[in-house]
């Protein structure tokens, strides 16, 4: 089999692909931010003595982690309007879905993170007279974030890859643009190779960048 590569069509639409890449990154970062809030709240909920609350959070985590993301995306985008919830557009419904999805994974992350803050720091905070909320805000939270930093970066990379599913609800991210080029030009190999390389490069750049941040902050001796 011979296949003649012709990347000129790709270069002509390269800016469209880059915009798609940027859109995917943006969706991932927003979802990570919202997911972090969800994860943190649920992580704290796990530490309370309220059994109902813990059961609810456990139910949320188990349910979401066992559901395919694509099904959740369809449910929010196509399903919710059927019961009258239709005030958000395709971008918003995607971000909502991805945030809830990320939140379930991040709940686990923060639960473990909060638990692994050494007791002596909390005691030390008490000793210098910090109120409980001050202890959490100035001692526990910063430490927790340093502990979970590697997990957060892994989650960002996963979420960025997950944004490829947005193509199913007509969001013009990178996968969508690759399919467009594939369909419009029949340059199958070029379109998918370029998309794959862009994803790969971005994932590794994120990984390298975050590794630097981790090196700077995550050290607890």
């Amino acid at each position, binding site marked *: 089999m011979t296949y003649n590569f012709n990347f000129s069509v790709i270069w002509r639409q390269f800016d469209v692909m880059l915009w798609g890449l940027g859109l995917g990154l943006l969706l991932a970062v927003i979802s990570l931010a919202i997911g972090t809030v969800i994860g943190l709240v649920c992580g704290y909920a796990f530490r309370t003595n309220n059994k109902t609350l813990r059961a609810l959070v456990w139910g949320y985590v188990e349910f979401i982690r*066992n*559901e*395919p993301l694509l099904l959740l995306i369809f449910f929010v985008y196509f399903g919710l309007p059927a019961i009258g919830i239709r005030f958000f557009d395709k971008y918003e419904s995607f971000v909502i879905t991805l945030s809830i999805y990320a939140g379930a994974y991040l709940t686990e992350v923060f639960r473990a993170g909060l638990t692994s803050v050494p007791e002596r720091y909390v005691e030390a905070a008490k000793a210098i007279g910090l109120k409980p909320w001050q202890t959490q805000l100035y001692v526990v939270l910063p430490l927790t974030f340093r502990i979970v930093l590697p997990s957060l970066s892994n989650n960002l990379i996963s979420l960025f890859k997950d944004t*490829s599913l947005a193509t199913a609800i007509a969001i013009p991210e990178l996968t969508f643009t690759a*399919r467009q080029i594939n369909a419009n030009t029949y340059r199958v190999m070029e379109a998918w190779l370029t998309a794959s390389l862009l994803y790969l490069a971005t994932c590794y750049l994120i990984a390298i960048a975050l590794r630097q941040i981790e090196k700077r902050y995550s050290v607890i001796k």
Partner: protein
Amino acid sequence: MQRTYLGELMKAKWSLLQGFITTMEISAIVIVIGLIAGMIGGLLLVYGPKPVRLLMRLYVDVLRGIPVLVLILFSYYGLALLGVNISAYTAGVVALAGFCSAHMSETFRGAIDSIPVGQTEAAKAIGLTFQQRFVYVLLPQAARRIVPPAINTAVEMVKGTTLLSIIGVLDVLLATQQTIARNYMVIEFYATAMLFYFVLNFTLSRMGAYFERRFGFIRY
């Protein structure tokens, strides 16, 4: 004429059942291939000659850095170029199995690497050959460490089968969408599909937890 959920479920039962079989079948094929290829891949990553090791590393890192959906679409449109009449089903299974193998290889590598060097040294000291060291010392310990991440990957693969609906494989998700296109019971039938995936994946993860407890995680 009032549509009822049960009535519509009965009407759609054959196509949903077909979707169920397809999802189970693809999941099973992909996970089994992934486990076998992952074991070989993991060994090559640790013990292979340097060029092989590098090639494997490249394979594993490249496949893990590309979204599964892109792999599936690439495989679907790319294999068609070969001129062979390759169905969406085959193209999808190839992509998912390739992805699963990469993850499993990394899992196996991690498991083998995490066994303390002392174990191998001790085994060497009592004169075991490589084969014996592998079968009697490394494998039993690695197997225990592999269960949790392997189950995680398996759950991810079951979830990943839904992406094949995008290239037209009639799995549970696509069968559900077709049903919804006929009766507009959007919430009911998406909920049915969610229940299916939950039961399947929850069972899988519980099985993992059971094996983990049963065979214990040896801590050092």
